[in-house]
C-alpha cells in the first residue's frame, strides 16, 4: 500500500498535520535542512518558541515583511542562538512563575547550522547546556557554511572540497576529521542527546518528541543534506541522507542519561563509503587510497559507538 496515497489515513497517527513552517519560503530545491526544520516543528507542536541563528534557515524563512513561521520565532545573531534561547526560557519561566503569562508549558528550542553550533556558536551552546536550561538545541548540520558560499567548517567531513578548503593539485580538500559534536554534548552530561536525519522522518520526529519531553537541556544533531553545497542532484537529498547513515558516515544513535542506544534504522552491515561519495561533486577528486583511509576511520568511529552501547551503563 502506498503510504502517500493514503496520507489522510496514516498521517494523523504518525505526524502532526498542521504546518508550523509554512510553504513559500526561499529554500533551494531539494533542501534537506528545511525539510528537517518542518518535521521538527510538527513534532514540537504549537507550544514552542524557536530562537534561530543567522544562516540559511533564517534568511529563507524571515524575509521582511514576510515570515514562514507559525510559531513564535526570534533571530538575533549568528553565534548566540543558544544564549537567546536560554534567555527566552528564563524570561518565560520568570513571567510564568509570577503569573504574568498563562500557565502553559512552552518548549524553547535553539537552532543553528553546523557553523553556528560547532564553530562560532559553541561557547554559547556549551554555556546554555551547562547551566541546565529547559531547552532543546538542534544543529542542522549541512557540513559547511552554505549560506555564505560553501566554506569549510569544523563539521565538514574529511576529504570534502569546499571553497576555503578546496581540492587542488596538492590538496584533497578538508584535512581534518569532522568534529564530534554529539559527544561534546554528551560530555556536558545533558539528559538527552541524539543524532537524526530527515531521510528517516519518523525516527527524527520520535527523537524530537523525546527531547521535548525531557526536562532540562537536550541536543539533537540533525544531518541535513545540501544538494547545492554538496554538488548532487536536488532529487537526491533523501537518498544521500540514507546513504550517509547506511555507510556509517553518520550513524543514528541516542544517549539517554549517559546510556547509548543505536537507532533501529542502522543496518547490520554498513555499505561502503564510496557508495555515498560517488553521487557528490564535493568528493569527486578523491582517489581509492584516500577513500580507504576514510573508510577505516568511519568503521572505527562506528565501532566506538557500538562499544559504548555495550559497555556504558546509564547514570542512574
Amino acid at each position, binding site marked *: 500500500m502506498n503510504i502517500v496515497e493514503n496520507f489522510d489515513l496514516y498521517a494523523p497517527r504518525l505526524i502532526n498535520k498542521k504546518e508550523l513552517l509554512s510553504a513559500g519560503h526561499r529554500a533551494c530545491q531539494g533542501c534537506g535542512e528545511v525539510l528537517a526544520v518542518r518535521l521538527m516543528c510538527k513534532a514540537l507542536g504549537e507550544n514552542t*518558541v524557536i530562537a534561530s541563528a543567522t544562516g540559511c534557515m533564517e534568511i529563507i524563512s524571515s*524575509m521582511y515583511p514576510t515570515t514562514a513561521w507559525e510559531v513564535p520565532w*526570534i533571530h538575533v*545573531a549568528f553565534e548566540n542562538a543558544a544564549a537567546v534561547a536560554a534567555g527566552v526560557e528564563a524570561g518565560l519561566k520568570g513571567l510564568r512563575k509570577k503569573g504574568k503569562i498563562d500557565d502553559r508549558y512552552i518548549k524553547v528550542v535553539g537552532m543553528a547550522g553546523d557553523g553556528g553550533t560547532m564553530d562560532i556558536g559553541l561557547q*554559547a551552546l556549551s554555556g546554555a547546556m551547562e*547551566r541546565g536550561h529547559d531547552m532543546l538545541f538542534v544543529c542542522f548540520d549541512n557540513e559547511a557554511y552554505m549560506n555564505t558560499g560553501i566554506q569549510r567548517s569544523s563539521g565538514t567531513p574529511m576529504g570534502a572540497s569546499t571553497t576555503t578548503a578546496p581540492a587542488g593539485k596538492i590538496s584533497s580538500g578538508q584535512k581534518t576529521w569532522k568534529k564530534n559534536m554529539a559527544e561534546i554534548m554528551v560530555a556536558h552530561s545533558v539528559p538527552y542527546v541524539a543524532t537524526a536525519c530527515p531521510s528517516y522522518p519518523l525516527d527524527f520526529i520520535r527523537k524530537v518528541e523525546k527531547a521535548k519531553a525531557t526536562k532540562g537541556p537536550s541536543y539533537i544533531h540533525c544531518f541535513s543534506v545540501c544538494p547545492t553545497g554538496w554538488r548532487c542532484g536536488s532529487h537526491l537529498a533523501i537518498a544521500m541522507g540514507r546513504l550517509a547513515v547506511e555507510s556509517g558516515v553518520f550513524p543514528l544513535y541516542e544517549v539517554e542519561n549517559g546510556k547509548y542506544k543505536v537507532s533501529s534504522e542502522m543496518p547490520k552491515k554498513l555499505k561502503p563509503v564510496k557508495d555515498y561519495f560517488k553521487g557528490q561533486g564535493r568528493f569527486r577528486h578523491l582517489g581509492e587510497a584516500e577513500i580507504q583511509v576514510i573508510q577505516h576511520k568511519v568503521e572505527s568511529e562506528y565501532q566506538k559507538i557500538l562499544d559504548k552501547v555495550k559497555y556504558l551503563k546509564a547514570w542512574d
Partner: protein
Amino acid sequence: MAKRVGMEVAVAVAEAVGQCDIDMAAVYPITPQSHIAEHLSDLVADGKIDAEFVTVESEHSAMSAVIGASGTGARVYTATSSQGLMLMHELLPIASGMRLPIVMGIANRAVSGPLNILNDHSDIMPQRDSGWISLFVENGQEAIDLSIQAFKIAEHKDVLLPVCVNIDGFQLTHMVEPLEFPDQELVNKFLPPRVPYATLHPSKPVTMGAFAMSDYFTEMMKAKDEALKNSKKVIIDIWDEWARMFGRAYKPVETYKAEDAEILMLTMGSMGETAEVAIDALRAKGVSAGLIKLRLWRPFPFEEIRAAAKNAKKLIVTDRAVSFGGPGGPVFSEIKSALYHEAHRPAIYNYIIGLGGRDVTVKDFIGMVEKVIPYNAEKTVDTYEFWGVRE
C-alpha cells in the same frame, strides 16, 4: 521621606534595580561592574527579587539572553564594563533595532590595550551609534534614580528602546556615599508593570529579528533614528514626574554658575562635582567661569547645549576618551556640531583628561581654565590636548 543610608554605589544600583520588579537578569562578572552582579545575585538568593538570574558564560551571551528574555515581555537588566561592553557591541544595534526595552548599567572603564581596569569613557564611546539611550550619572544618588527611571523611559510606548546608565567605574561604583532610596510604594506607582508591544508566546506567534534587504532597511534605520530623537521629550517628561514624586530634578544638560560665565567648562559623569569646586575657586579669584554637565549623551541634547553655551566666549570641553586620528574627543565633536550654525558661538578647546583612571583634581580644572584665559577667542585654537601627558 525615605531615610539616608551609607552604601557603596554599585550595591545601591543593584538595590535600586531590585525595586523595579525585574523578571530576569543575566550578568557576566567584570571589574568594576562585579559588585552590581554580586549584589543582584544576593538579592535573588535571599528572595528579595523574584527574578530569574542567569549566570551566563560571557557578556555576549548576557546581552543575547536579555534580548531573548525581553522578547518574551519580561523586564530585564544586565550590567557590564569595558571589554564586556566591547564584546556585547555586535548585539547593541540589534537590541535597539528590535525595539527591546533592556536596561543596562555600565561601570565605565578604560578599554584595552594595554589592559587597564580603571575609569574612563572609552568603553561607551564606541557604542555611541548603536541606537541606545545613553545617560551619565554624576554621583551615587543619580545612579539610583536613573537606574529606576531607565526602565520607565525604555518601556514607554513612544520610546521602546534600550537604555544604558553610565556610572564611572571605581570613582563612583566603589564609593560609599550617603544615599536615599525611594519609597517602594512610590516606585511601584512611578513604574507600573511593563506592557510589551509583542511577545514571544504561542498565544500569538510573532517573528522577531526578521531579515531585511535594501527595500526596507533604510526605512528601518530612519524609524530607529526618529524613535531615538523623539525619546528626549519622554525622558524630560519622566524626569519632571520624578521631580514631582521624589523631589530630585533632572535635566538633559545641567549648569553650574554658567548663566553669566565668559568661560565655560563641560564635563560628563562623576567629574562634575570636582569641576564645580574649581569653578568656585576661579570665581573667588574673579574669573568668570561656569560649568555645563552633560547628562544625556544619546539622544544628544542639541537645543539645551546651544542654550547653555549662548553667552560664553570660550568653552572648554573635556573628554575621557580619544577618537584616534580624529578631530578631538567624541564629546568635543558633538559640541562643535551642535554650535556650528550658531551666529554667536564660543571658541572651543578640547582637553582629554582622566584616561585609564588618572586622577583629575580641582587644580587641573583650574589649570585648564587659566590656560585658555590668554587665548584670543576670535582665533580658535583648533586642536586638542592630552591634559597633563608626559611627553
